[in-house]
């Protein structure tokens, strides 16, 4: 039986990962002191801090040491592990920018142990709801908290619950939407995998409030670990009387079940999700009626996102007012972002609402890893938009991001530098939406396809200025005439890149130039004679016979024959082939 756990991680970016070396060292020292059976050492994938050298976290004491050298190991074992004394000099400087509410238990407890969750205060909020507050007061607390849906639209959670509660029906349902599908986003996955019980607790409280007797987790099948952990957690909750008949001896009963999503992005849209659970084709239907009035099997249904539900036990345990201390006027609490792209420290961050983009990207993310100038930040996934560098000081909340032409979305955040081409970015997101369109309505189905065709044309140097008007016309029609959120926002990446970077589009169209060197059709390939070692590999690999020359005379590329396949660029070991 272990009495302590040590998590360790090399958090430096860009240097060789030396975790293994450090791990061996630590284990050896523990063995010498015969502590290896009491102390468990875990090489963690993520400890929530970045660029702090070697980091160890000692549990359950929750001591964080950072920037460790090899010689510090012995000291930690002697002082902290053996004698419980804290070595102040090694302590991690308090991370003030991040605030962990949703991720409060992530990495702190064993996700497969309900006991550890309960020791951390788990299921107290449920008890409080059942026996102290009752449904009305829970809604009151939720209202005070100002918690809004974290799935993207930001609808006040208490209102959703209140609607469903107000509808008379013999049967009601609650659903946890865990069909996270934005490219590069994994907030929900982390929560499901590392703290499944807090989501379950949130869902049980929601069910209690609205009077539902059955609930579903709709989890995408690509998250097998999340499915496994939720499955285990549900089984444990049944065992502990936290699910099933007469929960904790109260009058309230609830059954929970899991439904797997088969990978369609649109099934994250609530009406399509309901259709999918019903066994139908996952396509959206018009709202109203909203699911809160007529949802699953035509019964009133509350659908909440994973992150929203993970907030609920915290809100109830600490009180709505306490929760609402954090955030801005309209957006309360924290938001988890998956920060990726050209940022030094990529990963999940949880920050209070109202923090600026600059703080997220520079203070937490460490700026661009290339050292190049930051060009824009993309938020909101494929439904979002780009926010150029000049707006980095905007406080992040639902309204502000919307004003800038983007959205909060589910929490994807991609940092871009000057190597990123905005036409290319628009193309990337649009392609995703075109592939994921359910095909039901023409604005999205055909509009997206036509937009993509025009973007391809532009990136190949075939665009005209008239195309920009066509892009705007189709995008607008898609926004206004599409049925569901996916279609209405699918053109956002085009609209927002056009809004801030129209000149870049024009550069592609008029000068046939892509400054970021992403649009290969607009590039010329050239062999630098001074770097060329005359190996001839480029010529052998050129399928279009555009490279001529000999070992004696050197090699040249005939631009008229070159198809810009990039093969020569890839095979040249001496970086003698360049794109211009």
């Amino acid at each position: 039986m272990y009495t302590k756990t040590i998590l360790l991680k090399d958090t430096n970016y860009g240097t060789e990962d030396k975790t293994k070396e450090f791990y061996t060292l630590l284990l050896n020292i523990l063995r010498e002191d015969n502590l290896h059976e009491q102390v468990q050492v875990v090489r963690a994938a993520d400890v929530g801090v970045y660029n702090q050298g070697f980091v160890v976290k000692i549990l359950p004491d929750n001591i964080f040491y950072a920037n460790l050298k090899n010689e510090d190991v012995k000291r930690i074992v002697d002082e902290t592990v053996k004698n419980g004394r804290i070595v102040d000099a090694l302590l991690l400087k308090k991370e003030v920018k991040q605030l962990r509410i949703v991720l409060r238990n992530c990495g702190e407890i064993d996700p497969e142990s309900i006991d550890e969750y309960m020791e951390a205060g788990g299921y107290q909020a449920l008890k409080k709801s059942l026996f102290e507050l009752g449904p009305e007061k829970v809604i009151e607390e939720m209202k005070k908290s100002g918690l809004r849906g974290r799935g993207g639209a930001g609808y006040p959670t208490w209102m959703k619950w209140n609607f469903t509660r107000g509808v008379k029906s013999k049967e009601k349902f609650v659903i946890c939407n865990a069909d996270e599908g934005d490219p590069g986003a994994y907030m929900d996955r982390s929560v499901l995998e590392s703290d499944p019980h807090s989501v379950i607790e949130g869902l049980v409280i929601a069910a209690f409030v609205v009077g539902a007797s059955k609930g579903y987790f709709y989890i995408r099948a690509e998250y097998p670990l999340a499915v496994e952990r939720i499955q285990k957690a549900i089984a444990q909750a049944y065992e502990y009387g936290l699910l099933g008949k007469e929960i904790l001896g109260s009058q309230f009963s609830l059954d929970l079940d899991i439904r797997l999503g088969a990978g369609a992005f649109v099934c994250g849209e609530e009406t399509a999700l309901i259709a999918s659970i019903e066994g139908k084709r996952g396509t959206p239907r018009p709202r109203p009626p909203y699911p809160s009035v007529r949802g699953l099997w035509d019964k009133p249904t509350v659908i909440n996102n994973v992150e929203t539900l993970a907030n609920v036990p915290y809100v109830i345990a600490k009180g709505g007012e306490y929760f609402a201390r954090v955030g801005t006027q309209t957006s309360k609490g924290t938001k988890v972002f998956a920060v990726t792209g050209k940022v030094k420290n990529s990963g999940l961050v949880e920050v209070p609402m109202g923090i600026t983009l600059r703080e997220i990207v520079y203070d937490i993310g460490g700026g661009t890893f290339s050292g190049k100038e930051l060009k824009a930040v993309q938020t909101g996934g494929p439904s979002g938009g780009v926010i150029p560098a000049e707006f980095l000081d905007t406080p992040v909340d639902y309204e502000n991001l919307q004003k800038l032409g983007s959205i909060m979305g589910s929490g994807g955040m991609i940092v871009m530098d000057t190597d990123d081409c905005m036409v290319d970015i628009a193309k990337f997101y649009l392609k995703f939406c075109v592939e994921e369109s359910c095909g039901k309505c023409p604005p999205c189905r055909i509009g997206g396809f036509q937009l993509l065709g025009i973007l391809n044309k532009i990136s190949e140097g075939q665009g005209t200025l008239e195309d920009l008007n066509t892009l705007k016309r189709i995008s607008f029609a898609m926004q206004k005439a599409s049925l569901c959120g996916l279609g209405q926002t699918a053109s956002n990446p085009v609209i927002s890149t056009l809004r801030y970077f129209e000149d870049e589009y024009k550069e592609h169209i008029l000068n046939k130039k892509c400054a970021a060197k992403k649009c290969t059709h607009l590039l010329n390939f050239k062999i630098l004679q001074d770097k060329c070692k005359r190996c001839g590999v480029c010529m052998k690999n050129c399928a279009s016979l555009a490279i001529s020359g000999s070992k004696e005379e050197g090699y040249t590329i005939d631009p008229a024959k070159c198809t810009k396949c990039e093969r020569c660029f890839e095979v040249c070991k001496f970086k003698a082939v360049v794109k211009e």
Partner: protein
Amino acid sequence: MAKVVQAKINNILIRVEEGTTILEAARRVQIKIPTLCKHPDLPPSASCGICIVKVKGSNKMLRSCCTPVAEGMDIITHDPEIVEIRRTVIELILSNHPNDCLKCARNESCELQKLVADFGIRAESFPQFLRDLPIDTSTKAVDLDPKKCILCGRCVYACQEMQDVWALSFLERGIKTRISPAGDILLADSPCVRCGQCAAHCPTGAFVEQDHTAKVWQALQDQDKYCVVQIAPAVRASIGEAFGYAGKNLTKKLYALFRRLGFKAVFDTNFAADVTIMEEASELEQRLLAGKRPLPLITTCCPSWVDFMEKFHTDMIDHFSSCKSPHEILGVLSKTYYAQKMGIDPAKIYMVSIMPCTSKKYEITRSDEMSASGYQDIDVVLATRELARMIRQAGIDFMGLPDEEADSILGEYAGAGVIFGATGGVMEAALRTAHYFITGRELEKVEFENVRGLKGVKETEVEIGGKKLKLAIAHGLSNVEYVLNKVREAKLRGEELPYHFIEVMACPGGCVGGGGQPYMVTDELRIKRAKVLYEDDKGKEVRLSHQNPYIKRLYSEFLEKPLSEKSEKLLHTTYKGRPVYRR
């Protein structure tokens, strides 16, 4: 009383019952909001995105087809911005649709074509790309051209919800989305029962009935052929719609028309309906009194229903009336009885059936029994829509034609025969004659009002000869299961049977709502068409099949009596289970 809500549409104050959609409310104040996917007969699928409107206070545009008017709404249905978006959406749809209008079956009746014309779209704004998929002609009744499909979903609703057949569904997603039977198989290998409701509701030429008018023209040209024709009950009530006249009985103009087209003899399916009644009422009598075969008796005039049963409800085969459908009966009689009487070589007789139905095209080769005369009893079937085309091709001012009569001895009909075209009609006609067969007395009042009307399942009781007969009438195949399950449950529990006699018609409203009828059918129109038939019945001197003097003559001269050996051979058929999916 439903709650009334008040709102403004284009500044016009409206008061409508709660739940009324914006589209419907606008129509009531003379505002037409264009739409491509909303069919007045079907619930909104909300797919096309053309009927969008603005509601003050919301920066979204709402689909008027599915958004109910809410109290205090301030709605704008038309402004330059809305028109521009609608135009863009139409142009987008057009970029995924072939420019085949001139050669398309829906030329001049296509809802997309009309919108394109209304919006004055003269050029292609976006490059065109099409689904490169072949036309599915496998059913021999209804063709599917995936290129022309705009994915409005009407056919899917008709096939799945209205008809419970589930042959059609959406396949794939995004730009590859298409309508197809599940598993991408041919329609003929799918559960499709060829009812044609997909074609009747399709806004474009994606689903159309196979056109066989050329075959008819060819036969009419052939000096060697003796062309005869028969008209189904429901056709006379609807053909006028193709010429701007709804709700008119055009029986006698149709007779004149076919003579002008060159048919040697003009018959009426109603006559054969009277024969059907003679046989079916006898069958009912036998089952009731002699108990030879089990009750309830289920009608089999509808080939789609027969196909549906043979695929999904084979446990009911014993309950099926073995009697063929009226037009098949007329076919076999024309090539036997009529041929003998007139001294014509039956090999030369070419029988054309004018039907409200696409399924009849399939029925004529359904089994060997459809050639009981020794020749294929029906040579070709034209749906009402094809007939309308043929009239135009012939250059005949149809509505101006004089009234004429049908040809004996297969033309005169009793009132009972004509109501076959409406749901409940077969039941009512059979009851009139069954009453006589069972009691030996004639009815004082021949109308059975309870079996009429558009309620999906009609359950009622009548008393015949002191015995209570329990009846059920279902129309629209989705209503069948309820009725059959009640029979199954009673059988299983050994309880008293819920019904003695069941009538089923595949199409909602019966044949008047058939898949081959003129476009834009609604319940209102179905009622209008049915009324024509009921009025025809009312105006007839002879209203009971067994009183039809030509029926009496047929039996005395040829068939002897109902269910005689000859009748069984010529007028009856058998059923067998068929696989739902062939493959």
